């Protein structure tokens, strides 16, 4: 039983790390700011979700488990909101760091 749980956790965390890596690769490969935001929001959201799903069975108490889920929710929320704000600034061309 223990070994089964360990295997599942390992697979989930491994898959999560894979999606983080692909997201980062996307950051390098994709052609412009908007496409890169796609890679960041979606790949990282799934990557973090998988890592946290893999860690959940090992949480020492329910509080810690809740905290892990909460971390995922907050990162997701800030990721989606942040990417919207970045895309908006870039579209309107009024971001200070976008002067060319």
């Amino acid at each position: 039983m223990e070994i089964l749980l360990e295997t599942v956790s390992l697979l989930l965390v491994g898959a999560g790390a894979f999606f983080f890596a692909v997201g980062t690769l996307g950051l390098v490969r994709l052609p412009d700011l908007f496409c890169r935001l796609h890679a960041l929001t979606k790949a990282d959201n799934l990557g973090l979700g998988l890592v946290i799903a893999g860690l959940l069975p090992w949480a020492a108490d329910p509080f810690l488990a809740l905290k892990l889920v909460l971390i995922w929710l907050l990162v997701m929320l800030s990721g989606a909101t942040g990417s919207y704000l970045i895309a908006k600034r870039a579209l309107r061309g009024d971001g200070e760091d976008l002067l060319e």
Partner: protein
Amino acid sequence: MTIAWRLLGFCGLWLIFTGWNPGSWMIGVPSVLLATWAYGQLVGDSRAPSAARTLGFVLFFLRESVRAGVDVASRILRPRMRISPGFQTYRMRLADPSARVLFIDSISLLPGTLSADLVHREEIRVHALDATLDLAPELADLERRVGRLFGEELTKEKHGHV
């Protein structure tokens, strides 16, 4: 009454973040008060969705998150990336403030789409990794689900391009 629930909710969040350390409430109490106040300012008079509907949306959201991650990963990993990026405009019909925020945020986390701007309060500029597809049907479906979550029924026919 709702204020009491919000206070309780934020206290619970603080407890989850910091554990049982009593000293943490030095910062915790002002934070909870500030969060409760800010929440009241931002949320307006939105209705809170029911537990059953929330669960339904969460399941849908999880499924779509996996699809979105796999989709973007498969595009990135191909030797010649399969993308033709571009913008489309979608007219949002949701009126409830919380529903609108959830809709705009969800667009960015679901497959192939990213909400980039909101013009005239209802036109969302959506960036797509593959803009050759018509995004409207999928966005309308998401919008209906978000609307249902907040008790807002949207009719089928009105969606579409601007």
